[in-house]
């Protein structure tokens, strides 16, 4: 018994020392360093990924960090691990560690020159990395685009369920409105079909006017939000949950019965305009505006309304307007995400926007963490990766994922990264001479719960 305890103690002390060592080694790495390192790893995979995979006995490079392969054919587990170590983990760690001086110099220079320039360079690096990584397989392009769309959905729902503290279920409905409105825009004006006849405009104009279609999708979703908001925000209470749930079902059956939009069969023929750069740009715009909003005093009024409506009212906050604006804003982005979604799949049908979709979006919000932009990004990315990685397990996936969620809810009831402020400019600063300083993402110390 004491030997057992001894061992456990020694293990935990080793664990602590390893963590300590990692912190000392890597905490001075600026975000720029991590981005550079990721780019190097991706270029490495482009150059030697396939030969290395063959060498390790695999037929081609593992497309999603080897998860799918390892689960489908467990004999490949060692190969997949070695591959991930050699292509991703070691290069990233090495480049990040070795580029500390250079990275910090560069990050400092960028920041001094202009914070905007720094943001642009970081985004450029991030996009470049994603582009090259995804470029190696069509499957990756699809996964990345759907993941970015999931970020938009999760973040916009977090505005209502997290920042505002109400429980809304209408996001699939808003998404459907956006998806159909944007699809109608594309098909009616630029493609044409049996129902609508010949296109009204030359298709060459399409990609340039596509943003208008997406904004239209967002606007239609926001209009739909009016139907939910007016009855729900009259008085305080749990009306929103019920009304928004009803709304979701109404929208679904509405589209099932609109024959000119294909009814239950759905609508296809959307042009391939939702390319990776387009989806990426919209996601950045979404994250940027939402983060701006929730960090402004106008946006923080949502927290005040959530944590004490009476006090908010007495401090001049127009609580009804605050809730309405946030709700429309969230619906707008869900609509835009829906429009992009329809153009990624190039097909849309009402069955997509059902309870399962709702469960997914809610799961991403609560997994990532309420009241947190980083949390929503982390939630959406990890849920999507997990969901793709576990795909070979088929039915068991739907046992494992809920179990994981239950674990998260037990050990971190507010989600992975809740109540955290996302200060982008601070994140991009160099990290010289601050060993022990918290890693990327950690910004203002805010209490949990």
């Amino acid at each position: 018994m004491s030997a057992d305890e001894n061992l456990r103690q020694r293990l935990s002390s080793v664990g602590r020392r390893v963590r300590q060592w990692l912190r000392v080694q890597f905490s001075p790495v600026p975000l720029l360093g991590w981005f550079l390192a990721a780019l190097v790893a991706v270029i490495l995979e482009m150059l030697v990924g396939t030969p290395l995979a063959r060498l390790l006995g695999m037929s081609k490079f593992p497309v999603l960090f080897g998860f799918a392969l390892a689960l489908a054919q467990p004999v490949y587990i060692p190969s997949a691990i070695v591959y991930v170590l050699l292509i991703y983990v070691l290069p990233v760690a090495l480049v990040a560690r070795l580029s500390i001086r250079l990275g910090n110099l560069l990050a400092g220079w960028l920041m001094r020159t202009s914070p905007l320039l720094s943001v642009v360079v970081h985004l450029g690096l991030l996009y470049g990395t994603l582009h090259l990584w995804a470029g190696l397989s069509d499957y990756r392009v699809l996964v990345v685009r759907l993941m970015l769309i999931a970020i938009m959905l999760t973040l916009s729902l977090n505005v209502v369920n997290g920042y505002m503290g109400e429980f809304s279920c209408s996001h699939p409905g808003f998404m459907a409105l956006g998806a159909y409105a944007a699809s109608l825009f594309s098909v009616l004006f630029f493609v044409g079909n049996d129902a609508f006849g010949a296109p009204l405009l030359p298709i060459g104009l399409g990609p340039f006017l596509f943003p208008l279609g997406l904004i239209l999708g967002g606007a239609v979703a926001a209009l739909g939000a009016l139907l939910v908001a007016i009855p729900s925000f009259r008085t305080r209470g749990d009306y929103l949950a019920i009304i928004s749930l009803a709304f979701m079902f109404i929208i679904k059956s509405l589209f099932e019965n609109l024959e000119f939009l294909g009814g239950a069969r759905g609508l296809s023929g959307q042009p391939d305009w939702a390319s990776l750069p387009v989806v990426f740009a919209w996601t950045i715009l979404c994250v940027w505006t939402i983060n701006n909003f929730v960090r402004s005093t106008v946006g923080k009024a949502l927290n005040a309304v959530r944590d004490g409506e009476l006090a908010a009212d007495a401090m001049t906050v127009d609580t009804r307007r605050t809730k309405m604006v946030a709700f429309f804003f969230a619906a707008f982005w869900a609509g835009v995400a829906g429009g992009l979604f329809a153009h990624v799949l190039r097909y849309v049908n009402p069955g997509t926007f059902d309870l399962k979709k709702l469960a997914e979006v809610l799961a991403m919000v609560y997994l990532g963490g309420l009241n947190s932009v980083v949390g929503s990004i982390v939630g959406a990315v990890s849920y999507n990766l997990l969901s793709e990685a576990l795909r070979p397990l088929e039915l068991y996936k739907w046992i494992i994922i809920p179990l994981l969620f239950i674990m998260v809810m037990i050990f971190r009831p507010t989600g992975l990264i809740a109540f955290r402020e996302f200060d982008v400019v601070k994140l991009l600063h160099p990290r010289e001479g601050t060993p022990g300083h918290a890693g990327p993402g950690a910004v203002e110390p805010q209490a949990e719960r």
Partner: protein
Amino acid sequence: MTLLRVDDMTHWFGGLQAVSGYNVAIEPGQIRGLIGPNGAGKTTVFNLITGRYRPTEGHIFLDGQEITGLPPHKIASMGLGRTFQNLRLWRHMTVLEHVKMARYSKITYGLAGAFFGTARRNREEDDIETRARELLELVGAVDWADHIVTNLPYGMQRRVELARALAIQPKILFLDEPTAGMNPEELVQMMEIVRLVHEQLGLAIFLIEHRMKVVMDLCEVIQTLVFGQVIAEGTPDEIRNDPRVIEAYLGKEVMA
């Protein structure tokens, strides 16, 4: 001109007449007290004037304008700040965010500024922050500015509520038992702060208090409310010696 005037205000909660025939007139810069036993209806008077409840009867005027029935946020932005008997702070927000929030109705950058982080928005947020820090300095809570409010000691939380109410730039400040639950040391500090705020900002103050010492020291005129009715109104000395007050309320304390 009278800053705040209430004419014949009556309020029923179902069958309970919580306030009946209440009148008050407060001049700019005046400190006025409202005392009375528990359940007398003092907080209800505040809630009626600040718009939380609409009075069953009566009229309320702020700065010559009728405010009866207006929503609370409108009344507040017209220059009526308040604190609460039981603290009402926002548990996830920092002290600084609390004080900044009370500038809500004065913000001019609008939704475009909020969404797109315009230069104007940054400038305005900076201005609000400077002003908020000044107010926190005034109440002696500036060292806590970046802390989550729930991590503060109780007395400090009361000061934050006061600073927040001041950020509205009120013409009149309603304080509902600002020293409730405080120890003697905190109480003396709070009274000093209230006096300081009154001196520096020159606003009128309407104070509900339970502890005699506080009202007697601070207020120029005091009303005594019992079962929703004003039974006496006068200077601290008059109130102290009024037999009806002694009987209804002060009795035990004065004798002791």
